[in-house]
């Protein structure tokens, strides 16, 4: 007989479950299970009244295990762990069974079988509960320092904001100076301020802070430890600098798409990428001149290197988002320099979203003309007698074929992820299909990564303009500070453990761990695997890899899983 005292609660979910599953029948079927001392049904297990009743049962009946058969743990695992906690029961002695998504909603057409399945699932839950053990959260004291990797506008702004909050910051910038792309820019949208001025101001402010240290020519070469307490190594010029930081904010920015030779005439003198054209504008004081020749007309070709448009092997399929805006803005700047300039914008779609619609309006009112081409029939660029001849079918002129002569062709090139393998060998951050760093959840956890304590922001994460880059940098700052200011972090204890008796350090498991949580240690006279429980996510990937059966995950032990399978398969008729 089990010595455990388990309470089981079967929820109607106000009909969501009980309309299809006969909850009373389920209760009767499991009431006599080994270890079960309370078996009840309830209209809403999550209601205040039911929670109170469960708490009273736990205390009066001296329960040491608890099963709620209700909805998905995604919805209410933490609710019922909270109930256990308030009753003085260790929350990890609680097991949730999902009758709603897995029985009633899934089998609306066969209520009898839905009920039968529910009985099996609850029995399995009870079997698991019989083998639960009390666990405590893993607590890690945090170091009140942060590392910012990449000193562009996003990284610099994050550094200042962290410093404002009393957190010491190290900035590691790979190139010879900070500021990224923006440092090189003149007039920028939407405020017409010079990029170089913006960066100069940030740099001045950073210089005045005692708790910010900037390293240039610096690269992150090693990282160990875990959230709140990372040991990192910077290689700065020829030196190696060890640092101890609590969080890492990655703001390494983007690269610009480089067209293939011959792509819309690329490689011919006078065919410029958007950054090259922007530089030409920024360097011009009066009417536009290119290589000694006055510029009277410009053709822009949009979406180059974005949205599947590329002569390269693997075209980028995403929209780079900044380029419609930047091209419109460039067009207005060019007009201001040379008011008699003729500018033709050959686009697929205009995506000057939100208030940037004003940039479109401004370019148009300054005389820019827009022609729309079909992606299947891109414009053709040819150089004839020192001029470009561009031909396209303009969908806005009812598909007429139109030929434009121009002095310059500007390829409105997109943003790309920086191909920085050495950094990612250290950070091991997941990348999206677009190769930019990937967040945990685009809406709900937009700057967090699967590596706790490592945040991403700016154009390293997705194509972004500076305002959006800074906004995300400040979000990453807030997330960092929330972690560091508390002084400690608490992590789920449902992590892998090694049976050091059985382990022979064959190292089979090491490469299976997506979080690099497995390391070698010496235990007595032999080498064995050890799990860094702050890094381990309890995913279980390592467990089946071990030829000695030395690995297990707390809360999901082999014994528990076997007991659940046995309980599920057992016949009780």
């Amino acid at each position, binding site marked *: 007989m089990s010595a455990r005292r388990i309470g089981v609660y079967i929820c109607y979910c106000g009909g969501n479950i009980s309309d299809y599953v006969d909850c009373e029948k389920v209760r009767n079927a499991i009431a006599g299970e080994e270890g079960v001392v309370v078996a009840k049904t309830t209209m809403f297990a999550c209601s205040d009244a039911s929670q109170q009743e469960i708490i009273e049962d736990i205390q009066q009946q001296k329960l040491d295990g608890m099963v709620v058969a209700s909805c998905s743990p995604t919805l209410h695992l933490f609710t019922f762990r909270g109930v256990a906690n308030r009753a003085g029961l260790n929350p990890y002695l609680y097991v949730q069974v999902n009758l709603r998504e897995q029985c009633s909603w899934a089998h609306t057409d066969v209520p009898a079988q839905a009920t039968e399945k529910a009985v099996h699932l609850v029995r399995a839950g009870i079997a698991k509960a019989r083998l639960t053990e009390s666990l405590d959260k893993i607590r890690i004291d945090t170091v009140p320092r942060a590392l910012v990797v990449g000193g562009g506008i996003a990284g610099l702004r994050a550094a200042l904001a962290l410093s404002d909050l009393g957190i010491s910051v190290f900035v590691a910038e790979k190139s010879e100076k900070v500021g990224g792309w923006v440092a090189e820019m003149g007039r920028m949208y939407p405020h017409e301020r010079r990029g170089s001025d913006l960066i100069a101001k940030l740099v001045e402010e950073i210089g005045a802070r005692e708790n910010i240290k900037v390293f240039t020519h610096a690269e992150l070469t090693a990282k160990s430890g875990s959230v709140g307490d990372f040991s990192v190594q910077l290689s700065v010029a020829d030196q190696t600098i060890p640092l101890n930081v609590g969080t890492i904010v990655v703001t390494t920015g983007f690269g610009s798409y480089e067209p293939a030779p011959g792509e819309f005439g690329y490689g011919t003198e006078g065919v410029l990428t958007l950054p090259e054209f922007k530089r030409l504008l920024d360097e011009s004081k009066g009417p536009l001149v290119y290589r000694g020749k006055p510029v009277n007309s410009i053709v822009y070709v949009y979406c180059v290197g974005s949205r599947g448009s590329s002569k390269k092997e693997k075209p980028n399929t995403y929209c780079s988002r900044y380029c419609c805006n930047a091209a419109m803005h460039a067009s207005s700047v060019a007009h201001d320099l040379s008011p008699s300039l003729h500018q033709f914008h050959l686009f697929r779609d205009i995506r000057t979203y939100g208030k940037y619609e004003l940039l479109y309006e401004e370019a148009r009112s300054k005389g820019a003309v827009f022609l729309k081409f079909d992606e299947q029939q891109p414009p053709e660029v040819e150089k004839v007698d020192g001029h470009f001849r561009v031909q396209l079918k303009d969908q806005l*002129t009812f598909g007429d074929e139109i030929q434009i002569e121009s002095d310059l062709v500007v390829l409105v090139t997109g943003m790309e992820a920086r191909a920085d393998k050495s950094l990612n060998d250290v950070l091991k951050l997941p990348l999206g299909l677009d190769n930019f760093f990937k967040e945990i959840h685009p809406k709900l956890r937009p700057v967090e990564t699967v590596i706790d304590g490592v945040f991403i922001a700016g154009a390293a994460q997705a194509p972004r303009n500076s305002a959006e880059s800074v906004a995300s940098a400040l979000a990453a700052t807030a997330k960092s500070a929330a972690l560091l200011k508390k002084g400690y972090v608490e992590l789920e204890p449902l992590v892998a453990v090694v049976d050091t008796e059985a382990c022979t350090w064959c190292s089979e498991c090491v490469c299976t761990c997506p979080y690099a949580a497995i390391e070698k240690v010496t235990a007595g006279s032999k080498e064995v695997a050890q799990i860094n429980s702050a890094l381990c996510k309890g995913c279980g990937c390592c467990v089946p890899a071990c030829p000695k059966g030395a690995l297990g995950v707390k809360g999901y032990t082999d014994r528990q899983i076997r007991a659940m399978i046995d309980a599920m398969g057992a016949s009780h008729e």
Partner: protein
Amino acid sequence: MALVNPSFLQEVKASKEFNATACMNCGVCSAVCPLEIDLLPRKLFRYVLLGLEDKVLENTPVIYQCLLCKMCEANCTADVNIAENIRFLRSYIGRKLYKL
């Protein structure tokens, strides 16, 4: 193949009367035109905006068919001075084609 003619563009841009840059190609004008002329003025303005002088001159008869009744102008959602713009084109054609 229609060719963009920069000097025609220059002239259109220099004009104070011609405000067809505001046209968003919606087609309301063509729908309400009592003459049921398919070209006027949405397609015509596109030709002018792009500087396709040949296309404009090719359509001289149509430009002169317009009654200047302003049905289109009254219904235009973008406040294009359609009738005024047609007058501008007639004067241009008068100078260019008939050397008036």
